[in-house]
Each structure stands twice: as structure tokens, then as C-alpha cells.
């Protein structure tokens, strides 16, 4: 098969790193060759966070070549915009409806992109855009921290991997007392997308 390229973008503290780990582990369980690369370094707390995950028959580079992202999973709108130039014209964007203002916006030195600019950029990038109320879904489940797994649930519905594989990986990767909550979060996201496809 053609290599599937996933890009995860968000803000430090949103749980993006765990979702990269889970997505990579699901690829391994589903029998793909997998590579994953996270940008950590200085940008951990409150900075931009970026993960590349690649599934395929043979994957050489852990870094996705430019402009070849199949699925952009954006945990935050501004970070989603930052990744848009890397998405294939036939690629898919999952955009979590959340704004986290960088310091320069909070202090009034710069302006957060407005809704009409956001819509125009998304429409120019691809027809396959899903605006996901991920934070609302997570909060309805009682814990904003499961946002990452809600978004993975949404993504899972679009991928050729059965739910049981995802659920096994989730059981392995999240702390025991949060397994039930995360399985619910996964199912919530998955159902949300099923209603739309």
C-alpha cells in the first residue's frame, strides 16, 4: 500500500504526544511498518507540538516529505493552520474547535486568525475538512484530558483498522483507572465521525 502520513499538531499539555504514541502503536498492531517522530525540545510547555506518524509497507524516513500529509489531526485551530501547507490536496483535516492564545496574542501584540480567514484557508487546502467539537465531547465525558482519545476515535473511523485493535492499544497505553473513560472517549469520537460519513 501507499504509505499513510499522519501529522499531529497541538499545544504542549494537550496530550498530543500520547496520541502520537497510540497512533504509532496501532499501526504496528495492524501489521504496518511504522515510524514516528516528535518535536520535543524547548517547545514542550505551552509551545507548538508536532508529531509525524507514518504507516506503510516500507517506511524509511521518520519525517514526512513536504506536502504529503494524508491526515492532519489539529488539536488547536492556529496549530492546524500552521500545518495546512503540508496536507495533500486530497488529504483530510480533522480540526478540533479549540483556541489557545499564544502569549503574543494575550498581550495584544499579535492577532489570532479570525473565523473567515480560517474557513478560507481550510477550503483552499482540501474538501475533506471535519470541524470536531472535541473539547466539548471530552468535557461531556467529564474530563478535558481525554480530548486526545476523542480525536483518535474520530480519526479511527476513517482508517482501515478495526476498532478492537485500537481498544487493545488504549488498554495498554493509558493508566488502568482511566481505561474505561478512554474507551468511552474513543467510542464517542468514532460515533461522531460515523454519523458524518
Amino acid at each position: 500500500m501507499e504509505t499513510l502520513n499522519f501529522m499531529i499538531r497541538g499545544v504542549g499539555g494537550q496530550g498530543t504526544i500520547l496520541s502520537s504514541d497510540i497512533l504509532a502503536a496501532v499501526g504496528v498492531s495492524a501489521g504496518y511498518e511504522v515510524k514516528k517522530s516528535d518535536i520535543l525540545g524547548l517547545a514542550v510547555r505551552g509551545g507548538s507540538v508536532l508529531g509525524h506518524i507514518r504507516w506503510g509497507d516500507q517506511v524509511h524516513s521518520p519525517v514526512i516529505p513536504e506536502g504529503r500529509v494524508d491526515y492532519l489531526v489539529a488539536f488547536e485551530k492556529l496549530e492546524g493552520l500552521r500545518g495546512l501547507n503540508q496536507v495533500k490536496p486530497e488529504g483530510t483535516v480533522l480540526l478540533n474547535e479549540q483556541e489557545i492564545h499564544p502569549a503574543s496574542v494575550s498581550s495584544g501584540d499579535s492577532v489570532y486568525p479570525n473565523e473567515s480567514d480560517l474557513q478560507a484557508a481550510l477550503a483552499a487546502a482540501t474538501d475533506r475538512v471535519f470541524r470536531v467539537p472535541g473539547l466539548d465531547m471530552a468535557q461531556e465525558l467529564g474530563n478535558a484530558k481525554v480530548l486526545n482519545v476523542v480525536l483518535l476515535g474520530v480519526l479511527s473511523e476513517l482508517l482501515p483498522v478495526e476498532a478492537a485493535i485500537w481498544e487493545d492499544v488504549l488498554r495498554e497505553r493509558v493508566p488502568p483507572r482511566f481505561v474505561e473513560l478512554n474507551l468511552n472517549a474513543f467510542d464517542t469520537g468514532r460515533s461522531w465521525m460515523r454519523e458524518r460519513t
Partner: protein
Amino acid sequence: MKSLLSGNAAIARGAYEYGVQVATGYPGTPSSEIMEHVARYEEIYSEWSTNEKVAMDAAIGAAYSGKRSMVAMKSVGMNVAADSFFYAVYTGVRAGLVIVAADDPGMFSSQNEQDNRQYARFAKMPVLEPSDSQEAKDFMGAALDLSEEWDTPVLLRTVMRISHSASPVELGERSANDGATTVSFLRDPHRLVCTCVWAKHQHPVIEERLKRLSAFANSYALNRLEWGNRDLGIVAGGAAYSYAREVFPDASFLKLGMSYPLPFDLIRELADGVDELLVVEELDPFLEEQIKAEGIRCRGKEIFPAYGELTPAIIERHAADAGLLAKEQVKGARDLALPDLPGRSPIFCPGCPHRSTFYVLGNKMDETIVTGGIGCYNLGALPPFDATDTMGAMGASIGVAHGLDIADIPDPFVAVIGDSSFFHAGIPPLLNIVHNGGNSTVVILDNRTTAMTGHQDHPGVAETLRGEPARKIEIEAVVRACGVTDVHVVDAFDLSAVEETYRKALAFNGPSVVIVEGPCYFVGPGPEEAYFVDTESCIACGTCFELGCPAIKHAREVNEKTGRAKAEIDPVLCVGCDMCAQVCPVEAISAPSGAKERG
């Protein structure tokens, strides 16, 4: 069984499986997780040493004693360790000794972009470079074997993209081969005492060893010819190999696992079998210059940059410019019309004890020159503080400040250093100031951890990497023992006390030290109640924004006279450090349960 491991976790797994018994290191991105993973294996003695040189010497001593040893550090850590690995190449090792260094092409979190393969050639030791996590594990074993067979330390060089990328790794058991079977120190002064009269006999031995290693490299399993199309042959190793493979899947390759010394017979064989030979390597033309010196024609840095990461995108673009790829094969990033995207630069966390120092130095004492160093406190160089004037290396702030002093500059100046950096490289320059009669002010920001790299221990912390209790070294006692008499200790969360103390220390005629005490939020007692802004009282003066706290934001309400936005506090982010309440001129900020007592 295959497991998805990061490069750093795989190196640690290799240390476990291939019988490493002693592991030392000093934290530094992108290497820190290596030792954190090693510490999970009880079979291996592990420690954070005070600096990379100390770690290096300790690993050398353990190898002399017959224990397979490793030492881990980031790119620039090699500079600190260099004095010691150079002599270890002369003395040789009894049991395997591997130096793991994680370089940072792209400078994601380093002060330079040095290429540590140069150290292998400089110090005359072999270097191995893994291309993925499986190789990261396997090459640890290969490096230990090479080290023992050739009686030399071996450099295992990784880069951020190998260390922080993950790919599947076949896990094995810990090998029965724990290096030498009897552990004892064999006295052999003619080898282990590098006095010139003895050590000079080693130099020809080392030169001969390199020649034999280079011949051996031609049959070494880690170097492999992969024949493909004959129009293009590529020499590459490490991360660059995976990128080049991505861009040229059908080319012929010499995949180098050992990038020094080089297998020139294999390189010639590839060169003779293809129309054009390319060298694809990140940073320096390390392979290219050696290959050209052998009279083998190749192209490398005339096509690809000698700086930054060499990602598939960059290889594609430059290869297309050189006519090696058709332009239409290069997709590249798209050129969508995007709105202006504000950056998201790192910033002191809510509750950070460093905030007071840089607020005071950047706002209240802006005339003060600030020499800085490595750690979270380097964020004091950024807005809104713009306080720090120099930053180059661990411990450098104190020596540079002494330089300003002996240059007799008219401006006031202070050196700022973190607690871990102070133990690492801050004590000798402080002694130097005292001995030479200097008159500098040194600010030690004691947040009780090595924060920026992920909260590792150091001598001022009461617990070791292995979770064992440790004697906590008091910085004040060390400073006094260095001969400093004007010593101040101040609460980091008391802004006026911080300012007053800095002014006092600067006024003192002689060396002064101010120890600013306040734990990093992540090792501290946890959050206190969130503060709030009384919007009625807030005059929108903007003073609290000068603290650069992520929890303080512009409110929708404005001061009707000035049109400026008032402040509000995000209750989710605020941890109740109280600094904003202290700077507010109209007492509009407070905690729900009232003012905090300070001092």
C-alpha cells in the same frame, strides 16, 4: 517480540541486553531520556554525574575495572567530556566503553550545531551511527564489542531525529556476557598513566589501529552495499541514510554503520559501479572530505547544505536544483494563502520562580548587563523581559561577568546561573573571581532541579537517579567555602526583596552571591488557589503583563479613558504564585482567601 521504542529507549535497551553494568551521564536535550530509561534496569548502575567530564571519567574508571560502561550526553556535552575521552583513546579500556552523544542538527534546543563525528576523527576512535531504533539497540552491542576487540572507547552518535523518533525493535534477553568476568582493577601504569614518556609509545599504536580498523571496515557487517540503479550511488549513514532512501528509493547505496574510519574499498566499489557518486550527510562534509582525499570523485556539499537538518524535503529540493531529480517529482509544501500566524514561543510557566529575577532585571534595573547560561532561565532573554545579554555555554555567565569586570566597563552587571549549572561548571569561575580579587555579582537561581531537560537530580537534590536518598549539598555553604563573604539568600516569590537584594549585592565592593530560592513549579508543593482580577479596580496599566505569565490575559473590558484592555487571569493556568498581586499598583489582583504573607 517487537516493541515500538524511541531511539533513546532503544539505546538504553541495548545497554541492558548487551551487558552494560555502569552508565553515567549529564542531562541535555535530545539525550536525556537515554539515562532515564537505563535507570529502569536494576541490573545497571546508573547516575547523573555533576557534568559530562565527571561522567566520562567515572565510566572510564569502571571500564578499567572490567565493567562494560557507557556515558550519555548531548552534542555540546562532548566538549566538556573531551579532555577525558582523548586520554582514554591512549590508555585503552579493559571492558567495553561506549560514549553516546546525541547531536542536534536543526538546533531544536542547543546553542550550536556541532557535528560530533569530528570528535571521532580528532580523538582517533571509531564512531557508529544508527539509522533507526532497531539499529540504535543493535549498535550499542556492536559498539561494546568493537571497544573490547580494538581496545578503544567507541562513539555511538545519534541525532535528535533518531533519539526522538520511534520505530519497532526486536527485544532480546540480557546477555550473559557482562564484559570481563572478573571485576578488579589491573594495575598497568605504563598504559594507564599518560605521562609523556609512556604515552608517546601509544600514539603509533593508535595510528596503526586506525589503519587496521579502516581495512576491517570493508568487511564490517554494519557497512553494507545495497545495489540498485547504476546511474546514482549514494554514501550515507545515520538519519541522512533514511532521508536519502526516502528520496532515492531505487538508487545504489553504501549504507555506513561506522562512519569513522571509512571503508575505502567499499566506497571505491560503489563509485566504480555507478555513473555518479553522491555523499548525503547532515552538517559537516565529514565523509565527503575523506572520500575526496582518497582521490574518489563525489559530490556532496556543493549540492546539499552544511547546516540544519537534511530532511527529505531539503534533499529533494537541492537534488532537483542539481538536476538529480525531475522538478515535477518534487511536490514540496503547498502555497496556500494563510493569514498571519502568530508564533508560540516558550515562556516561563505559571508559578516559575525565575520570573521575579527577569522582571526585576528587565524592568526595574534595566541598566544592568546580564550574563546568562543554559537552562530555562535563558528565556529571560526573550520578551517581555529582554533582560539577558549573553549566553553561550554551561557556567559561562560567571566567567564572562569576570571578563566585564576586568575590562572595567562602567555599567552595572550580574551573572545569572541555575543550580544544576552551578554544580556543573559554576564553581571554578566563582573561585577565580575570589582568588583574583574580582568584583562581580553572581545570581544563583536555585529551583532545586535540572528543569529544562525534564527535572533531573543534581548534587543539590536529596535523591539520585536511581531513587536513592542523597546528601543534599547546600549552595550557600559551597559559595562561602569558595571564599565569598557577601552572600544573600532571598525568596524568589518576593519581588521587592529580590530587587532590594540585587541592589545591595551590586553596591558591595567585592564578590557577591545572591541565591534566589524557589522550587520549580514541577517539583514544588503544587498549585495554590487561583488569583483573580477585580475588573472594576483594574486601570489597564499593563504592569502585570510585564510578568510574561501565560495565565494573565487581556480581558474584553477596556479602560474607557485609554482604550487599553484590562487584565484577567485564567483560573485553569494560574497556580497562585502571587507575583502579579505584588506588581499591581492599584491592588486589583488578589486571591479569593486574601493576601499572602511574604518574607
